């Protein structure tokens, strides 16, 4: 069965870029334009991988990542974070959210800083999904 990759990003150009790379790699691409919609699609479609933007309106990628990682039913969904924000900045923000009473979440397995070259994205997808 074709593996499914969900792209969650508010920027339609980024979604188009990501879905094109995903389909070129032979996977099936799903889309959501914010964290809320992303969470609903994860629950409905059970994707094999989520490509998640960090900063988005209407529930950011930070919130969706934390929701996925703290829900036992969803924690195993693999996530690649994509952001214009440096990884160390993201990790500091996560530490602060935990400090402010949020649940501790694992560091992201994969974190790609934008702009991402198509070859790099394709390599990451293949590394994770085979």
């Amino acid at each position, binding site marked *: 069965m074709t593996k499914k990759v969900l792209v969650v990003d508010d920027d339609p150009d980024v979604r188009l870029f990501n879905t094109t790379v995903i389909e070129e790699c032979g996977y099936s691409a799903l889309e959501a334009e914010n964290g809320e919609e992303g969470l609903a699609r994860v629950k409905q479609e059970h994707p094999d991988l989520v490509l998640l933007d960090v900063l988005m*309106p209407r529930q950011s990628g930070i919130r969706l990542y934390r929701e996925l990682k703290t829900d036992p039913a969803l924690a195993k969904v693999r996530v690649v974070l994509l952001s214009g924000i440096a990884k160390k900045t993201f990790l*500091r*923000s996560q530490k*602060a959210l935990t400090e402010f009473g949020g649940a501790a979440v694992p560091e992201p397995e994969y974190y790609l800083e934008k702009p991402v070259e198509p070859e790099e994205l394709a390599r990451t997808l293949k590394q994770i999904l085979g």
Partner: protein
Amino acid sequence: MAVITISRQHGTGGRALGRMVAQRLGYTLADSEIIERLAKEARVSPRWVESFEKEAGTRMSRFISTMVARKWVDRILKDEHGYLDEQSYLDYLVLIVAQVADEGNVVILGRGSQYILDDHPDARHVLLVDRVDHRVEIVMGRESIPEAKAVQEVAAEDRRRISLYGSLGKSDFDQPLLYHLVLHMGRLDLETACDLVCRLADVGELNSLT
């Protein structure tokens, strides 16, 4: 590449000091910039963020966050494309403060930045305190308001601060151990306070507690 965070009790001249320090060091003063960035990311108006910050931690904002269905908020705020509640405000805030700090050479006013950047290697945390009666005097002079109104304002802001930090699970925000420098503003003029903070920014690597 230092980062100065200034936490303050209301009426201690934090904004004026922040402005002076930023100007003298050639740093950016991150105050309205944080509001603007947050508004942009959340796709709401800067005005919404400002009023949200005024209400942050209060019963009203919790009511909005937990009880008011999103669809009703959407109907009311037709011209906004985003949404902000306590949780999403915090999500954006921590990321933006961390981002602003990583850009360096910046003075950040409040917003829990002393916690968010607690172990940031380049951050120097400053707290401004003063006696209540003196803070009331400052507010009276600054805003040309009668004493009774200034007393009310200072008390309300003190309560808001407790409430805001309380919503983050914090009550130790006036503890000196969180800071590199604590300034009693009733005993210092702004110029001297500015000198001290600028000297702190110039100090090289500091001992880290972590």
